[in-house]
């Protein structure tokens, strides 16, 4: 889901070996928060048909919310594993390692399921020359809001309960002390100050 220029990412995905690529793109999707985004994605997935496993990254690098993965899982009524750093398929089960702050859990899930992954999951491969050539032959399907059986009240700005009301650059909290002088003096001053505060 994204503006038309998001096709670039899909072209790369095709070159890396994806069989099919679909872009959900419509001006009415603009202003979507994570609830509207996960709804729209889930409707795109429904339109694509049957699936076993849905993979997402743990979070986007702009919003950093990590809310879209669980949101899609909820709209599609699927079990979820977030922050997976390893996934294995064992017969009809998904065995994954979910990272927690100071530990990890090994989870067993049945298909279909949704998993979000951390960067430890793997080292992405480069598209091969053959992949690049084959990608040129494949087409990217673009679906607009009319192609999906959407509830129009759930998409874009109208479907987004959260609203940004202000954007600002934070006020820097007054500068501290800049230690100046000859480099060796600076080191002495720093040590002196830290000792005085009983930190070192």
């Amino acid at each position, binding site marked *: 889901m994204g*503006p038309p220029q998001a096709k670039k990412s899909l072209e790369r995905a095709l070159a890396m070996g994806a069989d099919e690529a679909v872009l959900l793109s419509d001006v*009415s999707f*603009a*202003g979507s928060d*994570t*609830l509207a985004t*996960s709804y729209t994605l889930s409707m795109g997935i429904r339109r694509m048909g049957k699936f076993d496993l849905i993979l997402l990254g743990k*979070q986007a*690098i*702009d*919003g*950093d*919310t990590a*809310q879209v*993965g*669980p*949101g899609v899982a*909820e*709209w599609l009524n699927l079990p*979820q594993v*977030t922050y997976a750093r390893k996934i294995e398929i064992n017969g009809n089960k998904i065995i994954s390692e979910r*990272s927690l*702050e*100071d530990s*990890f*859990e*090994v*989870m*067993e*899930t049945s298909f279909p399921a949704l998993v979000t992954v951390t960067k*430890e999951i793997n080292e992405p491969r480069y598209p091969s020359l053959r992949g690049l050539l084959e990608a040129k032959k494949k087409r990217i399907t673009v679906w607009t809001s009319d192609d999906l059986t959407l509830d129009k*009240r759930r998409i*874009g700005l*109208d479907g987004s*309960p*959260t*609203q*940004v*009301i*202000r*954007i600002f*650059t934070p006020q*820097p*909290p007054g*500068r*501290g*002390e*800049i*230690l*100046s002088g000859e*480099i*060796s003096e*600076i*080191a002495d001053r*720093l*040590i002196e100050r*830290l000792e005085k*505060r009983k*930190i*070192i």
Partner: protein
Amino acid sequence: MKGIKVIEEKCTGCKKCVPICPFSAIEIENKKAKILSHCNLCGACVDACPYEAILIEKREVEVDTSSYRGVWVFAEQREGKIMPVTYELLEAGRRLADILGEELSAFLLGNNMEKEADKLLYYNVDRVYLVEDQMLEVYRTLPYTQAIVDLVKKNFPEIILMGATSIGRDLAPRVATRLKTGLTADCTGLDIDKKERNLIQTRPAFGGNIMATIVSAHSRPQIATVRPKVMKKPKSLNRKGKGRVIKIKPCFTQKDKILKIIKFIKEEREVKDLQEAEIIVSGGRGLGKAEKFSLIRELADLLGGAVGASRAVVDAGWIPSYHQVGQTGKTVQPKLYIACGISGAIQHQVGMRTSEVIVAINKDPNAPIFSIATYGIVEDLHKFLPLLIKKIRGKKDVFS
């Protein structure tokens, strides 16, 4: 562009909106602002326009927000112990509840948690909802979601706060989506618009160089997650407050039993070290190359501290991600944070700015890190660090 419009009679073509737009989605055409199709409707230009010439139209879906009352805090437990972030949220929640003139409640899910539930009464709460069942002993997404959603649908809280932990960030979006309500992740500031009874949520946005204030004006409950160590930790009262524990037995359907946890393995000691360390020495791009992290490690070892890192060097593969401090990494609050060769983008600052003492070493005097540093040192770290290490080592040798 749908949803946003430029009122041409008011627009003077002053261009003030152009640099403000975080998406570069405004152009001036025939001396009027033109909004391009990749506009995110964030509203930055609306505030920036001196002539009120830009308008965002949002259809307001009326929800009866008045039937929702009170502030709730999710009391996260692991292995039967309440996590410290819960107490930080109770402190923040108390303040919000007092502004609204409403009650503060904690909700705790688990099994045999009566004693832990009692502890919450020492933190100025009015109510503790204790939901107990064998299915809730260990955190699992679906049973927790169902138990919380059921509780919310019976009691109608207007605000829910949850820790932005690996559990809270798994659970909150699931709960918010099922309730079809607004959720804001990783808030660094929370306040109340008393007139509208809205929760004013502030968080870093768009990669972390600017802050955004977010409200969910037309949906209830308003849910926010807050990272551990962002809010102040309260002192417990000497005795139990007037609050009481309300016991609830949840009701589960078969669907909740899909997921199984096979093993729970404690490891990654270094991650814990970073968040509990009293001293952290952090390295950034200014180190020049991966090998130079040895300088950071040496100083950290010498001071008995842990090693941190900026996002840039983790992304470059110089050091594993569990060392990362910042919006996408860990939030830390040590007694001493030494930032070496880190420019200090907001994304980094939100992860460490509540440290007691911040020392910044950077050769660029304009690096943003200096704006939050207690002590700033404008020097080349490759010269300064070896000297500092030598001097501290010299002192230690004298005393040992």
